[in-house]
């Protein structure tokens, strides 16, 4: 069931088109991350959803009610949206308890039920007993939790979180993030999280929607997004990627790193169906191939030397020289310039810690399939 449905949303500021025909469906009870670089319009989208900005065109549907659409505009205070802004934005003149109870009207709730709910919520976010404190007496992480409790207090249709962890210290971020994730899951509240941090989006959300050029370029589970990006740009945006040319032939592709099996191909290709551009016809076609750094195996030395292991499947692998080496403890990221083609972009390889490798030494690379390939268009 869809809790939040956005269709054909346009928003411009003066001559600057920020959102352009944006479509997105958020399933009920899910935590969806909207991921995009800064300036991509994430916050604008959130502000339109919350009712702080009016859309120029398109529809926003919250639950079963149209919140913004032709001839309809539901003001922010009538949308039942729990909004958690970047800095938490607690009311500095109110206590923690008064902050949480802000949206609960005294008339409808009554004094006792109101303070009970407030105490329960604070207990739930792990801040029981801090109800008399003022926001400036709380740490950054505590402030964010209070902000979340305040948003959940009104039993919102959707919770909107605008980069809620960006202002926290790195060591605090992970724990607050996990707590918030758990809390949102328990409450079963549909939530939309806006972030520019890929790690955050992939590790926190059930679904990730990538915002690009004013629209959603891809919306999928984190696993799908990483393993089956819609195009090379998306692949580079989500994690590290080697995108190299190759020749696609049926279900395999010939590349610099040898013949590799191809999975799933391009989702867009599937949707487009057969016949387009002769995609399912026989013959060879140029393609761009995605190989993630962890799909490449690195062996010191050259195939002829003693250090190199036996060549698998008769593939001798690709020899190259190390041009960069970054050690991260649990693993190391190595950049290798293929010897065969000195002008090709260097390949990025992730290896598990292990032997110290020095810049300039020769290594052999082998890729582990299957890989993703996008047929070249317009040739």
């Amino acid at each position, binding site marked *: 069931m869809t809790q939040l449905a956005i269709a054909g949303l346009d928003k411009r500021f003066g001559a600057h088109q920020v959102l352009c025909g944006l479509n997105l469906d958020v399933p009920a009870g899910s935590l969806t991350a909207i991921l995009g670089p800064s300036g991509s319009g994430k916050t604008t989208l959130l502000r339109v959803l919350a009712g*702080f900005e009016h859309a120029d065109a398109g529809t926003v549907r919250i639950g079963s009610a149209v*919140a913004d659409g032709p001839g309809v505009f539901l003001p922010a205070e*009538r*949308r039942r949206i729990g909004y958690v802004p970047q800095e938490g934005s607690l009311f500095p003149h109110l206590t923690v308890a008064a902050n949480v109870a*802000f949206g609960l009207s005294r008339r409808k709730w009554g004094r006792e039920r109101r303070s009970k709910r407030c105490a329960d919520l604070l207990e739930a976010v*792990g801040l029981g007993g801090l109800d008399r404190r003022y926001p400036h007496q709380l740490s950054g992480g505590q402030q964010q939790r209070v902000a979340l409790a305040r948003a959940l207090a009104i039993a919102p249709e959707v919770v909107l979180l605008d980069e809620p962890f960006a202002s926290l210290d790195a060591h605090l971020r992970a724990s607050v993030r996990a707590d918030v994730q758990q809390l949102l899951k328990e409450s079963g509240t549909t939530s939309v999280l806006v972030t520019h941090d890929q790690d955050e989006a992939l590790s926190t959300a059930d679904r990730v929607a990538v915002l690009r050029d004013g629209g959603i370029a891809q919306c999928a589970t984190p696993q799908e997004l990483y393993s089956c990006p819609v195009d090379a740009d998306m692949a580079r945006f989500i994690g590290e990627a080697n995108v190299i040319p190759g020749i696609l032939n049926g279900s395999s592709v010939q590349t610099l790193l040898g013949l590799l099996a191809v999975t799933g191909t391009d989702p867009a290709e599937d949707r487009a169906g057969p016949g387009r551009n002769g995609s399912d016809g026989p013959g060879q076609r140029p393609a761009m191939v995605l190989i993630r750094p962890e799909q490449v195996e690195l062996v010191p030395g050259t195939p002829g030397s003693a250090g190199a292991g036996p060549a698998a499947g008769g593939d001798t692998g690709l020899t190259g020289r190390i041009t960069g080496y970054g050690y991260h403890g649990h693993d190391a990221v190595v950049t290798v310039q293929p010897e065969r083609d000195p002008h090709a972009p260097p390949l990025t390889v992730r290896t598990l810690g292990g032997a110290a490798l020095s810049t300039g030494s020769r290594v052999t690379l082998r890729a582990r399939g299957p890989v993703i390939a996008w047929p070249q268009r317009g040739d």
Partner: protein
Amino acid sequence: MTSSPVLAQRGPEPGQPGADGPVFVAADKARRARRPRALIAAAMLIAAVLALPLIFLLIEASGSGAGADARLIFRPLTAELLWNTVRLTVVVTALCAVIGTAAAWCIERTNVPGRKIWAVLVVVPLAIPDFVVSFGWASLWSWIHGFRGAVIVMTLAVYPLVYLPVAASLRGADPGQEEVARSLGSGRVRTFVRITLGQARGAILGGCLLVAMVMLAEYGAFEIVGYQTFTTEIFTEINVAFSLPAACALALVLVLLSLVVLAAEGSLRGRGRISRSGALAQRVPAPYRLGKARIPALAGLIALTGLSLGVPVGSCLYWMASGGRDSLTGVSMPMAALTTALYGLLSAGLATLMALPVALLAVRHPGGARRFLERSTYLVLAMPGVVIALALSYFTERYLGGFGYQTAPLLILAYAIMFFPLALVGVKASLARAPVSLDEVARSLGQPRLKVLVRVTLRLTGPGLVAAFCLVFLSVITELTATLILIPTGVQTLASQFWVYETNLSYGQAAPFALVMIAVAAIPSWVLGRFFDRGAADPRMMT
């Protein structure tokens, strides 16, 4: 964290958004943000009220015919008044800039002994009305007279207007810039001129503007030292010669002069803004070691406070002690104090209330036409009290058949118009500090706009509103010019009763009124000092 069903609990509120009440339906074509109509209407009404003085001056100027106006303007008296006013304004403004900046630097940045005490004492003269300073000096020494007397008296009375913003700006300035300049090979003097003064430039200019505007508007102090300016002459035309057309003609010239000062300050200020890079923690710079210069610096501060504070207060005490009871009678002190406080409270309240919609519009809903609306209210800055009083009395006489003339509501309205810019500055500054995101959160939690204003915005701007209120209150209780023109018959404020005694040379009876005025004004001054301490570098914030 514990798992709890409370999270999923539904409140008594209906489950669907927008289930209760009508949905706001916008015109389909223009799905734009709703205009804050009520705010715009209120702001337009206020702008119209504030424009009243100028409108009536213009009506009068065109009504009596260009020829008559020209005859009233182009006469030797005007040239003399112009020369008197301009020369005094320039000299006093320059002196105040030097003294105020020097005092601010000594107290904020050097190791002169007793910095904390000086920081308080140097500001206190702000609580002493200019005409009391003038009275204090001129009643003791007869050579305090004419141009020389006016320069001495006014410089001592108004230099805190430069000191306050400059001190605040020096306190907020980034000490790193000076250190960088020194490390780049710039000497101490060069660093002071290029960096320290450069950082305080906006504050110095802002202070000078205030001084110049006070100089153009001052009446009482000049009357006492016998120095004739536009304002004193306009006052004489109204209250002694009863010649409204002549007063109006002179007022036009005075308003033009004020506009010239405003424009000059605006162009000098330029577009540059002082910015601190990054959100660096505020660091207190090490005080500059004066060495042997400590003694002259200390002597300077002692002399400054002695002359600006000691002489007027001492003089009042002297006259109170030596002067016996006179045959003159007036209203009692408690009565006058009560009237003054009442007028002060009501006009400060009115001015703050008027400033609120204009400031809300300017800060929260900026836009081309609305910005113009807000800026237009600053035209009142160019209206000295005597002109506002003149315009209002002229209006009541001409269009209302004298109805309302010399009544309390008219006087309170005059005060509110006169000091509206002060209120607007305070309200705007504090509104700008209350983050919009808090309003948005409040609305997303289901609170309608008006409730958000009361529960969040006004609560957060409270200190700024109090500061604005105090600024207006302080100005009202020490106001003399408009008070003398518009005060209801039979009623006296502290200032007007003081004036009655002073002009009749009953110094012994005038002095207590002056002292009470100082005491009453000291309270809001202190509150204001606290407000400036929290870092409002530019008292006008005319951005």
